[in-house]
């Protein structure tokens, strides 16, 4: 794992996994957790590519994906910015969380755990008994 800090963004890239997904997911996380401020300018494709030592095409496709998420906006001639809308970020965050939960439940279901089983495991976790 290589650690990188570019401006306010922090990345840990694992070269044995697709880089594109790692960049998209880590930036989504930074935005969802509020580590990058709303309206903040993100590094240019060149800056991020040089900072991470990766192909600029990879960065470009990651930026396009974030734009599809609605988390960033590109302003002609000015660069790419985090959205100004807290609402968009909140909505994205809850949808993402929902999806993570669904995936988790599906995996547990596969192993034969019911929702009840799951919630009792979580309850025990909360009480620090596991």
């Amino acid at each position: 794992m290589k650690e990188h800090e570019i401006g306010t963004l922090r990345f840990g890239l694992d070269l044995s996994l697709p880089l594109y997904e790692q960049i998209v997911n880590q930036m989504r996380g930074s935005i969802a957790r509020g580590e990058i401020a709303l309206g903040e300018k993100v590094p240019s494709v060149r800056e991020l590519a040089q900072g991470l030592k990766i192909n600029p095409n990879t960065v470009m496709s990651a930026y396009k994906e974030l734009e599809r998420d609605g988390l960033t906006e590109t302003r002609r001639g000015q660069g790419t910015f985090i959205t100004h809308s807290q609402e968009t970020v909140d909505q994205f965050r809850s949808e993402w969380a929902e999806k993570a939960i669904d995936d988790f439940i599906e995996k547990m279901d596969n192993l034969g755990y019911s929702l009840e089983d799951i919630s009792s495991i979580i309850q025990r976790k909360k009480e620090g008994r596991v």
Partner: protein
Amino acid sequence: MKDPVVQFRDVNLSYGSRMVLQDFNIEIPSQQVVGILGPNGSGKSSFFRLIMGLNQPDDGEIAVLGHSPGWRNNHQIAYLPDRARWYGNHTVEGAIQWGGDLLPGFDSMKAKELAEWMEIDSSMRIDEMSKGQEARLMLIMCLARKVPLIILDEPFTGIDTHSRERIMDALIDYVTEGEQTILISTHEIYEAEGLFDSVFLINEGQVALSGEAELLRAEHGSMMQLVKKMSHGGRGL
């Protein structure tokens, strides 16, 4: 899909009785950064020498930018051979002047920009340079050319970390702007592997595995792990 930049069909190359490339087939896509990876002695440099027409194959077909290799074609290629050395008592400025006069597509302004950015003083004498400085200059002489194909054979070997980072940054900068195809061979894969759009793994004179870097990563892990597996005799990749 565009025509491949480099195409080899059933190419064999031997030096004396030693087979270097055997039934070698490859198609290099255009406008990409392409990693040519493999253990030492796997045939990477020989592949480049065939592209440049510096060696002739025993048999097989080779097309480079749609033509057969040779000096008529080479004005379209910037080639950094491994173990490249400058000799003579040029200064950096003199080298850039020389490039402008003699190298097709050489942009002296661009070369000066690159030199400044790579921290190469233009009055510096080449025979007084460190290995790292000289490697940076060699790279500048390649990247300052507006040609469709750039070939860098082991651009990182024997170079200090600072120079490597500078070279990586220059390459990334170059790729951001350009529409060229860049072939890079290296066995220092860890530093460079994020740079590749696609990768060809060469082993024992053949293409053992190839594909888009991101897909290979998803399937096999890092390029470095792949090459390691290969050089330990790993089959069935």
